[in-house]
């Protein structure tokens, strides 16, 4: 019997180095890549029943999935079901022609490359292993291997990054003609090593950050990219050659569809329940070796909460949110007030709700006002 979930996420936690700003579940180095892939495959078997026979998307995230020992990675890729979009996250320094071929040979058709910046001093501050040339080399290797859906991650708001540094980052990224770009403001979580080291500098540039976000959107939309989600851009129209280049996997999250996540710290949302696997590697491996599911936190999502999430996520997108069924989650009076302030747009006879361009820059505050 098959289930209905069409989106599958696999977490590959291993990294060469833990960057100071990172707050993902990661493991530096690690000698258990093979055992971990065994665990993932065992967990996949246990959860298989919830997956639809035809998957829309698979996403291998990390960590640095491409840091995983190649044989283990190969074994994993070989065992995965097929899907229309299969994305792997990669760090530039790990991308060799061999790895690129391996990925493509096993059905990977989209690569998300963690470029972050093209400025040496910015990369150093971020403690990235790769230099600017590694990014270009990686892109070249992937293109040679026929990867025709490539996404670059960029980070802005890095201590010491000037507006002209950012301008150069965006320009150099555009030269590589990626199909997709994700641009994130650096989130310095309190208590991280990074915040400790750069906190005062971050505070100092807090005002400039506002300008950075505007600069990103301005520069990328001017280059013909579609600002389809708060932090995501893709080629569109002729340059997309008729393809929808939005990240289909992530679009699943933003549209409120169910997804299955496997691996340590991975999150699933299925049938109104959200589960988070244990982040502890040993516990995870032991459970699966014993044929049991790993320990996980459970959160029941009431209909009300699911609606709130739909509003919160849906308003990050450039397509209007359909309000049918959402009436008790959205404060229409607030929506009208915000419309008068030029922040929202109610479509039809209040059948849909979208944020204006300015509203999207203020999406957090606007959404907080819109929610009942």
């Amino acid at each position, binding site marked *: 019997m098959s289930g209905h979930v069409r989106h599958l*996420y696999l977490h590959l936690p291993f990294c060469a180095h833990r960057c100071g700003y990172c707050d993902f579940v990661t493991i530096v180095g690690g000698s258990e890549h093979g055992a971990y892939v065994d665990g993932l495959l065992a967990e996949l078997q246990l959860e298989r029943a919830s997956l639809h026979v035809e998957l829309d998307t698979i996403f291998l995230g990390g960590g640095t999935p491409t840091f995983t020992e190649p044989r283990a990675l190969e074994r994993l890729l070989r065992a995965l079901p097929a899907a229309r979009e299969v994305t792997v996250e990669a760090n530039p320094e790990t991308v060799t022609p061999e790895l690129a071929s391996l990925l493509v040979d096993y059905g990977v058709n989209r690569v998300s490359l963690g470029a972050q910046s093209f400025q040496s001093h910015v990369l150093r501050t971020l403690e990235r292993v790769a230099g600017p040339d590694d990014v270009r080399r990686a892109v070249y290797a992937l293109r040679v291997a026929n990867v025709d859906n490539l996404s670059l991650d960029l980070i802005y708001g890095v201590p010491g990054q000037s507006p002209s540094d950012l301008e150069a980052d965006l320009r150099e990224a555009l030269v590589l003609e990626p199909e997709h770009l994700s641009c*994130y*403001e650096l*989130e310095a979580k309190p208590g991280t090593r990074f915040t400790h080291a750069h906190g005062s500098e971050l505070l100092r540039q807090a005002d400039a*950050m*506002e*300008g950075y*976000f*505007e600069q990103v959107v301005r520069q990328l939309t001017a280059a013909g990219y579609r600002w389809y989600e*708060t*932090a995501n851009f893709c080629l569109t129209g002729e340059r997309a050659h008729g393809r929808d280049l939005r990240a289909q996997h*992530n679009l699943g*999250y*933003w549209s409120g569809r169910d*997804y299955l*996540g496997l691996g340590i*710290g*991975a*999150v699933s*949302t299925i049938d109104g329940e*959200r589960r*988070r696997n244990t982040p502890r590697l040993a516990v995870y491996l032991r459970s699966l070796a014993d044929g049991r599911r790993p320990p996980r936190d459970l*959160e029941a999502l009431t209909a009300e*909460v699911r609606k*709130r*999430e739909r509003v*919160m*996520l849906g308003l*990050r997108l450039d397509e209007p949110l359909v309000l049918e069924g959402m009436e008790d989650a959205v404060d229409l009076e607030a929506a009208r*007030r*915000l419309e008068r*302030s*030029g*922040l929202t747009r109610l479509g039809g006879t209040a059948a849909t709700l979208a944020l204006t361009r300015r509203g*999207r*820059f*203020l*999406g*957090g*505050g*606007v*959404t*907080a*006002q819109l*929610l009942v």
Partner: protein
Amino acid sequence: MQQDRIRNFSIIAHIDHGKSTLADRILELTHTVSGREMREQVLDSMELERERGITIKAQAVRVAWKGYELNLIDTPGHVDFTYEVSRSLQACEGALLVVDAAQGIQAQTLANAYLAIENNLEIVAVVNKIDLPQADPDRVAAELADLIGEDPERVLRISAKTGEGVAEVLDAVVERVPAPAGDPAAPPRALVFDSSYDQYRGVVAFVRTVDGSFTPRERLTSMATGTRFEAEELGFFAPTMRAADGLGAGEVGYIITGLKDVARLRVGETLTSGATPASEPLPGYKDVKPMVFAGLFPTDSDEYPELRDALEKLKLNDASLAYEPETSQALGFGFRCGFLGLLHMEIVRERLEREFDLDLLVTAPTVAYRVLRPTGELIEVHNPAEMPREVERIEEPYINSDVIVPKDYVGSVMELCNERRGRFDQMEYLSEDRVLLKYELPLAEIVLDFYDQLKSRTRGYASFDYDFAGFREGELTRVDILIAGEPVDALSLIIHRDGAYARGRALVERLREEIPRQMFDVPVQAAIGSRVIARETIKAKRKDVLAKCYGGDITRKRKLLERQKAGKKRMKQVGAVEVPQEAFLAVLNLDGERR
């Protein structure tokens, strides 16, 4: 006790000139308290009084000295309680005027001395603290003698601290203060010079019997308000309550009334017998009216019922405290309270916070305004937000003030008084280097930060006292504060035209700093009617969105958003603008004002 063996007196002194210490020594010397019972400042029973070193409520203690019955009536030492002081003095035939041998006469000394003279009291001048190294008893004795028209040789020189000269003080009371002069055979009359509330026994009246006598279980009537009750118990303090068979003419003591509300037996009332009432009350009863007003709001709006209960309880013991519910769009539910003065306000606030554990927001104090409307109607306004926009005339309370300063600071004080719309009346040298300045000032100019300014501009050397002088017409105007075009009631103020611009500007600038940026530009304006006198703009935020949101983040991001939403609920909504309570606090809070 035979009337000619009774002496009733009080001690009047500037704060810290040693009144309480002298009272303590008298109690010791007359064996009214044993050494074991003795503790500092026996008469000041409230914790707050001891800490502040001031006396809030008058009390009376009976002591025995060489065959005489001496009643020492304690008086509150502060300007806010002038009326209470005057009633206490009316209960006496004499007063000890105590002055610090180092500091000399202070403004309060003057005010109290005048009060004593007005009440025809025999004044026994005392220079205290002669043991201090910087004491100058001769100079101070000369100042004192000059003030009351006395022979400097008759001014007593003592140290209440060491006890030196205290016996001579008591001798002087016996010799110089006249015995009470009432008629023991006349229908009974007693002056209520203070009262307090006991949770079990009701209102306890402190009385001075003038004519006739009172006995327990007697039916009594108050002559001004007509309150009737039975005297459940009579007695005196020595220094704790001692029940007695009666209070005869000239005696001082207490009457337990069983009444449940001090407001029913106001200070200054005359008590008489229900069976054989006197025909005329004793002179001088006044219904004291609050002059200073402020809004009291619980910081946590859930504490409103607690604040209401606490005010009710305080009012039981403080007839001069007035309050009524007030609703502010910015601050929610609270009370507009009326006080005798600033000190009274501070005391009430501290008692509410300390004894009732409340967290309060006190709005900037204002005074009572008398407003003539175009309709001819005369109203009193205690809240700037209630000031009508159409007015014929506004009158504000004025005071006659005395400031005593070393001569080097005369210039600074005159400057301050001029800035505060003061009208110079008189300048007089009390001694070679100390000057008395008399100014008429609007009370509204005093309630904000006059004391602090006076203190800092004279390095603490000035002393200040005042007397209510009446209402005068003023060039007053209402200034409204508008946030995004919406007037904010709690921030309206009434101010003299000349100060309106500067104050409006200061408020608007402060608000611009305190109100967080919103999703649109927010103008903050100060306006007189429709004329804007100051304007600032809070620039709109350009970014407020979380960068990343993927499958693993959704719960956390949702909770962040819910917190953001909950934070908004705690904000006060002024039109479309969310204003944090802290912003109002910063502008309104008295402490904030002073800082």
